C-alpha cells in the first residue's frame, strides 16, 4: 500500500464540476498523503485548476466529497457519519474531519488550514513584502487585538503578538532570501521572487496542506532548483503536505512522491513518478495521437495491461 492510501490527509471522492453543459472535472477520486508532495499534472484544459478551486473553496463542486482530516485519519465510517449530520466539520474518534465542499473559501483557509497560491501571482502589490506576510497571519492577530476593540484602546498583549508575527515573517523572508527587501513593495520584486513570496505568504497561515498552482512557471533552471529545495523543506520541516499543479516535468519527477494525471477532466493515471513515467496512457495524452488511432492505442494499452 502506498503512503497516500494508508495515511491520507485529503480524500477526494467522485468530484464532478460542471459549468453549464461543460464537464470540467468528471467523477475524479484521489487521495493526498499526509507526508507527500503530490503533483497534479495533465495537458492544458484538463481541469487541474478547477480541482484546485474546488479544494480551496473558490468553486462549489457540483457533486462529490472532499474530506480532510487535520489530525488522525479520515476513517470511512466517521466521514460517512459526518456527511449524514449535515455539518461542515466535526470531531470524530479518529480526529477532526472537515468536509471542504461544504465550507466557504475563507473558512477552508482558516479552519481546515488549506493554503494556496495562484497561477497568475496574486500578491498585494501596493503593500510591502513584510505587510504581505502579516496579512497572512490576519486571523491570529485579529484575536490578539481583541477583534480590534482592545487594539484601538491599546489594552492587551497585541504588541507582543505582533512582534511574534513579525519574527515569523522575518524567518520566512530569511528562508526565501528576501530579507533585505522586507520594506519594498511586493509589486517591485522580480517575477521569481514574487513566486517565492507568494509561497511564503501561504505558509504564514500555518497550513496543513499547501496547494501550489504552477509554482515553477516562468522560473529559470536555477530558480527551479531552489524551488525544489524549498518545497522539500516545507514538507520535511513544517509538516505540511504539498499538492501542486505543474507542467515542468523536471520539477514534478524530481520532488513528487505521488502523481495524479488528468485528461479531459478524468483521471487517467495515479501512482509514483516512476509508474507515471512509463504509463502508455500518459504518454499518449501528453504526446497526442491522431483521432483515428485513439481506439487502436487504447486497445493496445488494454492488451498490455492484461498481459502484465
Amino acid at each position, binding site marked *: 500500500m502506498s503512503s497516500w492510501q494508508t495515511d491520507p490527509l485529503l480524500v477526494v471522492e467522485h468530484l464532478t464540476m460542471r459549468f453549464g453543459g461543460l464537464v470540467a472535472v468528471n467523477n475524479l477520486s484521489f487521495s493526498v498523503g499526509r507526508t507527500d508532495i503530490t503533483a497534479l499534472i495533465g495537458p492544458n484544459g484538463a481541469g487541474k485548476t478547477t480541482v484546485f478551486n474546488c479544494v480551496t473553496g473558490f468553486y462549489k463542486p457540483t457533486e462529490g466529497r472532499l474530506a480532510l482530516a487535520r489530525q488522525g485519519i479520515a476513517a470511512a465510517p466517521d466521514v460517512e457519519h459526518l456527511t449524514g449530520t449535515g455539518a461542515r466539520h466535526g470531531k470524530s474518534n479518529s480526529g477532526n474531519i472537515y468536509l471542504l465542499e461544504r465550507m466557504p473559501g475563507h473558512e477552508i483557509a482558516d479552519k481546515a488550514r488549506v493554503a494556496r497560491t495562484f497561477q497568475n501571482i496574486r500578491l*498585494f*502589490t501596493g*503593500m510591502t513584502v513584510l505587510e504581505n506576510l502579516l496579512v497572512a497571519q490576519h486571523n491570529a492577530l485579529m484575536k490578539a487585538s481583541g477583534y480590534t476593540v482592545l487594539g484601538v484602546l491599546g489594552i492587551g498583549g497585541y504588541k507582543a503578538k505582533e512582534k511574534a508575527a513579525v519574527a515569523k515573517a522575518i524567518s520566512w523572508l530569511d528562508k526565501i532570501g528576501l530579507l533585505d527587501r522586507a520594506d519594498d513593495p511586493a509589486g517591485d520584486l522580480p517575477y521569481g521572487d514574487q513566486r517565492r513570496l507568494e509561497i511564503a505568504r501561504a505558509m504564514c497561515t500555518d497550513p496543513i496542506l499547501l496547494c501550489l498552482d504552477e509554482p515553477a512557471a516562468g522560473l529559470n533552471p536555477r530558480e527551479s532548483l531552489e524551488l525544489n529545495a524549498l518545497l522539500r523543506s516545507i514538507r520535511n520541516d513544517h509538516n505540511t503536505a504539498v499538492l501542486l499543479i505543474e507542467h515542468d516535468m523536471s520539477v514534478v519527477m524530481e520532488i513528487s512522491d505521488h502523481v495524479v494525471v488528468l485528461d479531459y477532466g478524468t483521471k487517467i493515471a495515479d501512482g509514483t513518478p516512476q509508474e507515471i513515467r512509463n504509463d502508455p496512457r500518459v504518454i499518449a495524452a501528453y504526446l497526442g495521437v491522431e483521432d483515428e488511432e485513439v481506439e487502436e492505442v487504447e486497445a493496445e494499452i488494454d492488451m498490455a495491461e492484461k498481459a502484465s
Partner: protein
Amino acid sequence: MQIQASKPVAAEPVSGGFDIMAAVKDAGFAALVTLGLSFPILAFRTQEDISNHLIVVPRWSWPITAAILVFVGRFAAILFRSRPRATRAPTLPKAPSASATFLIRYASWFGVAALIAFPMVMVAALGAGGSLKWINNYGIQILIYVMLGWGLNIVVGLSGLLDLGYVAFYAVGAYSYALLSTTFGLSFWICLPLAGLLAAFWGIILGFPVLRLRGDYLAIVTLAFGEIIRLVLINWTDLTNGYAGISSIPRATFFGVPFTDDDDGFAHLFGMDYSPIQRTIFLFYLILALALLTNAVTLRLRRLPVGRAWEALREDEIACRSLGINTTNTKLTAFALGAMFGGFAGSFFAVRQGFVSPESFTFIESATILAIVVLGGMGSQIGVALAAVLMIGGTEILRELDFLKAVFGRDFDPVQYRMLIFGAGMVLMMILKPRGIISTRTPSIFYKEQKAISGSLVKEGHG
C-alpha cells in the same frame, strides 16, 4: 536584402526643429472645431423686445473671437512643445525620499498647532465681530468636511469600496441628535455616541445587501441608498417634519454651561465679558477634537490587523479569501466605522446649525466628500485634509473676490462660477496628479526602514 516598408518620419521633427506649416494646420483645425462648437452656443442671443416678443440677436464676433483665441493658444502650445527638451528630465514615477516623508510628518504636527491657535489669533487680529466669519465659515465648515473626508476615506481610500451615498450616514447622525434632543431632552454628549452608533448600525444594514456587488454596481446601489434615506426624511412627516425640518434643536453648551449672557452662563462663570464668538470658538474646538479623534482612530486602525485587511481587500479580494480573511466581515467593519464617523459629524452639524432639514443632505454633498477623498489621494489622511481645505475653503474664498467686479462689471458674481472652477480643477488634477495630492502610500509597519510606496503600485480597488 529585405525590402523595408519604411514610412517617412518627417512629421515629427526630432529636436529643435519647428514645422511652421504643421503648426498652422494643427492650430487651424482646432480653431475650426471651436468655431463649429461655439457657433450654436455663442453666436445667437435671445432677447425680449418692447412688445415682450423673443427676438434673436446675432453676435458673430463671439465665436470668431473664441476661434482666434484657440488658434493663438494652440499655436503657442505647439511652439512651446517643439523646443528642445534637454532641460526637462524624464518624469518617472518616483517615490519621495525619506526626508520628504519626514517633512510631511512634521507638517501635520505643525498644522495641528496652527489649528489650535487659529481662533485666538483671529480674535486678536480682527476682534470678536470680524473673526466670526473666519472661524465659522472657514474653520468649522472646513473641519466638518475634513472629518467627513476622513470617515469616507476608511471606506473608499483604505477598503476600496466606492460609496456614493455617504451623506446618508451624515443625515442619520444629524437627525439622531435632532430627534433625541428635542424629544427626550438628551444632552449633546449623550447623543453624540448614540448618533455614531445609529449611523454605524445603518452602515451595517446598508452594507449587507451591497456586499456582493463590486465596482459600478456598488456605486449605484450606495447612491440609491443615499437618496432613499433623504426621501424617507422628506416623506415621513410624522417623525421628521418633512421639508420643514426640525428646528429649535438645543444649542451646544460647555459641558452643561450654556453660552448665554445670564448669570450662570459661560462668560460669567469664567469671569469674561459675554460675546457670541465664545460659542463659535467652542464649536471650533469641538469639531477639531472630533476630527482629530477620527484621524487618530484611523491611523491606529491602519496598524491593526483590521486595517491591513482593509488595504489587502483593496489590493486583491481573492487573495484575501485564500488567506482565511472573512471578506464579508471586513467590508462590514469598514462600512460601519466610516458610517460612525459620518454620524458623529452629522450630530455636530445639527448642534451647530440648531436646525436640520433634508435639503442639507443631497447627493451633491456625497459627491463633494468623495471628491475630497479622491483629490486628496486615496488613503492618505493629510491629502484628504488638504483637499478639504482646497475644495471648501476655495468655495468660500470666491465670495471674497469682490475686486473681480471691478474687472468684469457689477453683475459678476464669482460664486456662480464655483462649479466651473471646480470642474477645471478636477481636469487639471487628472492631468497633473492622477492619483491625488498625496499619491504615495505609507506602509503600516516596517522592518528596517520606512519607504513610501509609489502610487502606481497601489490599487484603487474594484468596489
